[in-house]
């Protein structure tokens, strides 16, 4: 394939960043790799760019920890803005499937969720105050999980299974027990999430602000 490239080295050199990040298409990857095999300069550059990429990803993975706590607050602002806008400009479009909204229904549902959330939250906090209520899961039944940071969660009745699964994945959580008598689940934090700095407290803090979660508390271990 080299014959189609007038200046193979210059072309390969320009494409090395995407060989480094694994996003070259097959045809380009094959000839750039073939060139690099016979070009020490390109091999050195490729190794250098991989180091830069690795460092940038590491930097990025470590940097946004504090921003995660701002996410829900920011979303709430945006959602308030959307609701205010839609309340100020009622839908007149006869085609509801063309991207238009139905604000009265949205607000009604939101209000219903809030009422349910408050009710479930009160139930949950009541249960937390009870000295007998320590954990839903008996720790001796799951010795390999007993030390993992865990969170007790009650989801909003309006939350779909898909939404719940997405939410759990985003936080690196895995359900290990539930639902309990008050609809409460116990979820543990994955090793990856812990390694990246997440704790039961931080995750519960984020979860408790999510509109799909009625109640979230870290479980003391």
């Amino acid at each position, binding site marked *: 394939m080299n014959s189609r490239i007038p200046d193979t080295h210059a072309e390969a050199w320009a494409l090395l960043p995407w060989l480094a990040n694994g996003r070259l298409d097959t045809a380009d990857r094959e000839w750039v790799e073939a060139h690099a095999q016979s070009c020490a300069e390109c091999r050195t550059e490729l190794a*250098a760019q991989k180091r830069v990429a690795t460092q940038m990803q590491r930097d990025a993975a470590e940097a946004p920890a504090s921003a995660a706590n701002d996410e829900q607050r920011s979303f709430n602002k945006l959602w308030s803005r959307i609701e205010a806008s839609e309340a100020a400009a009622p839908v007149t479009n006869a085609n509801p499937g063309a991207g238009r909204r139905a604000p009265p229904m949205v607000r009604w549902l939101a209000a219903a969720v809030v009422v349910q959330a408050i009710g479930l939250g009160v139930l949950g906090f009541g249960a937390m105050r009870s000295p007998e209520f320590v954990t839903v899961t008996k720790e001796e039944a799951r010795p390999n999980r007993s030390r993992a940071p865990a969170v007790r969660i009650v989801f909003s009745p309006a939350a779909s299974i898909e939404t719940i699964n997405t939410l759990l994945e*985003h936080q*690196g959580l895995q359900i290990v027990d539930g639902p309990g008598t008050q609809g409460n689940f116990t979820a543990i934090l994955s090793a990856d999430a812990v390694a990246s700095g997440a704790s039961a407290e931080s995750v519960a803090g984020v979860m408790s602000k999510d509109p799909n979660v009625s109640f979230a508390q870290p479980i003391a271990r």
Partner: protein
Amino acid sequence: MPLKIVENQSIENPALRLATPPSDASERALLDRIAKSQDQAAFRTLYGSYYQRLSRLLTRMSVRREDIEEVINDTFWVVWTKAGEFRGASQLSTWIIGIAYRRALNALRRAKLRPVADHEFDEDSISVESSEEDETNQQWLSLGLERLPVEQRMALELTYTLGHSCEEVAAILDCPVNTVKTRLFRARETLKQVLPRLAGMSGDHA
């Protein structure tokens, strides 16, 4: 902390999301729910999927911290109102990040900002002798990135931090593919002058 986790479990941790963005298909399914049924949960999930990525990019663009939220929310305002108009000619991620990029450029123009490096980064504060090599590399990297023009910085971030292809970067930055290659070429040359430790080179290779 010792923990046995279920095998093959797909975990998307916010901190790890940067380098492993969700698939285009799953994101399009969310957009479809937003467009067809104004699904708040889908909107929230999509928002969460991009919040960290965009925060990072906007920070790298030297957008002021207080403006970052506004740019992200302006971007997702467009996503909410235009979800039904997205025709899928490009990847959803390039559409969303492209909107954010243009909004951020507008914000920078409005604020007439200088790069943060001019007044916040002290080159003398770098300790080459630091025993924490990663920390030192991070400092050098920040210095190097801040010396780059914003277009080059974004091309580098989109390629290395977010893992986009050359074509995707071109779509996001709304420029030809060859322009992306040129920007990255120049960015690499500049970084070599600043990052000899990290890049493992003395600057005389190219």
